[in-house]
């Protein structure tokens, strides 16, 4: 199982993206668990995270997030603006999976 977590300001717009990504994963038969939440709640999030994706609107938090979680083996990336805008779940899912491939 691969765990992907999306964070943005309130966890609302990322939750739309989560649904699109889940659809894409189902089509490709990939076993993933994807969740969205506010950036502030991630610190107390108990479930595992393999890939952490930031909504482009909070890319200003990228450095801080990498500092805090990068060392824990979580792959961190900011979602591409256009993919986010078009809610292209397939592409964002692919990017997330590629991040994992690279590390292995």
């Amino acid at each position, binding site marked *: 199982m691969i765990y992907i977590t999306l964070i*943005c300001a309130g966890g609302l*717009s990322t939750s739309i993206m989560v649904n699109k990504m889940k659809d894409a994963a189902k089509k490709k038969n990939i076993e993933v668990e994807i969740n969205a939440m506010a950036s502030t709640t991630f610190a107390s999030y108990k479930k595992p995270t393999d890939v952490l994706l930031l*909504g482009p609107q909070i890319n200003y938090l990228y450095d*801080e997030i990498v500092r805090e979680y990068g060392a824990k083996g979580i792959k961190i990336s900011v979602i591409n603006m256009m993919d*986010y*805008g078009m809610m292209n779940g397939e592409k964002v899912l692919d990017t997330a999976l590629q991040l994992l491939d690279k590390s292995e």
Partner: protein
Amino acid sequence: MENIKNKVTALFGRISPVINKIGENKYLQTISTTMMATLGPVMVGSVAVLLLAFPIQAVKDFLLKTGITPILAVVNSVTIGALALYVTVLISRNLVNRMLPDEDGSMAGALSLMCFLIITPLSKTADGIGAIPTTWLGAQGVFTAMIVGLLVGRIFVFFRQNNWTITMPDSVPPMVTKTFDSLLPCFTVGFIFIIVNRIFVATPFGSLHQCIYSIIQKPIQGIGNTLPATILTSFLMQILWFFGIHGTNIVSPIVTPFRLALDTENMTALAAGLPLPNIVGNGFFSIVCWGGSALGLVFWMLRSKSEQYRQLGKVAFIPALFGITEPVIFGTPLVFNFDFFIPFVTNNSINLCIAYFLTKIGIVARCSGVQPIFGLPLGFHAMVGGSFSIILLQLFLQLIVSPILWYPWFKRAEKKALLRERQEKA
């Protein structure tokens, strides 16, 4: 034009580290999480206020006859009327929690409450019973509550980080050691606030509360209640959004405490049946600037001749009806797109002017101060305003004004998009 674009982009490169600094600022983040965490009691109190001031007389009579009205008034006093108490506990707890991940922060929260009460003047009721006046527990004490909470939390962290504890021999059980660990910061903080309180009692202000309220909170609140200040904040937020940054998130922690205090004043007046003192507040701002006023643009996209825009319109329409406009912001994109710079940055400000004016002359009622819930659909989002006229205002701004304001810019961009699409096909 190209020159200006390069300059703006270069300028952004220079200010972006500053924005990162603000966004990462622990204290501002703490304020932001705290304000969100007070939502529970604030919501309960808001329902009480809305019922107390229900626009239908029959409902009001019923509540009065059944004896519910006094109960609602009490609910209001212990929630919104005691906002400062919640703020002071939570802010200290959250700061410690953020700075020391291993610490749950509840000790610091309790300490902060203690210090807040130390500086709050006591009095007596007519029957001679000791009492804490509610004066400083509500809107007027919010800012002091924040300062006390941040200070106490910070001192607590300082003690922990420097390992200033009473060292116990190894044979002492860990539970006991833990209690002693907290003794030193507890006594130090308590001592500091007892002294601070004594000093301020001796000043003409009479209390730290009065001093902070008169010198900091009241003047800034006064400025915050004006149209220019409101426009300025919307302007800043939108400029940040133009650079792809969640502007609302960056600016909110700075302005929310003051706006919330304005809202609280309105709610208190409403519960007491008095005229509402303020036009501007958090509620007003989010009802007027709902979804960044971007819904109008999505409308045009839905019916666009451009393939790209029509596609985006379909994706963005439903979220936009719920005030979630990230798809249209990043999909158009409006970010770093100079074709849409002017409407993207100024539409909210124009809406604010219209709304302020309509409220000022009395066509639209003043907002109740109840906090709208983000994510509710258009119109429903404005219901907490407490008046039908406010719902109409939101519909008018989003369904009529916003499409008009976007139209000329959209047409220009659409032409470009069509040209591009034709060339790609050829």
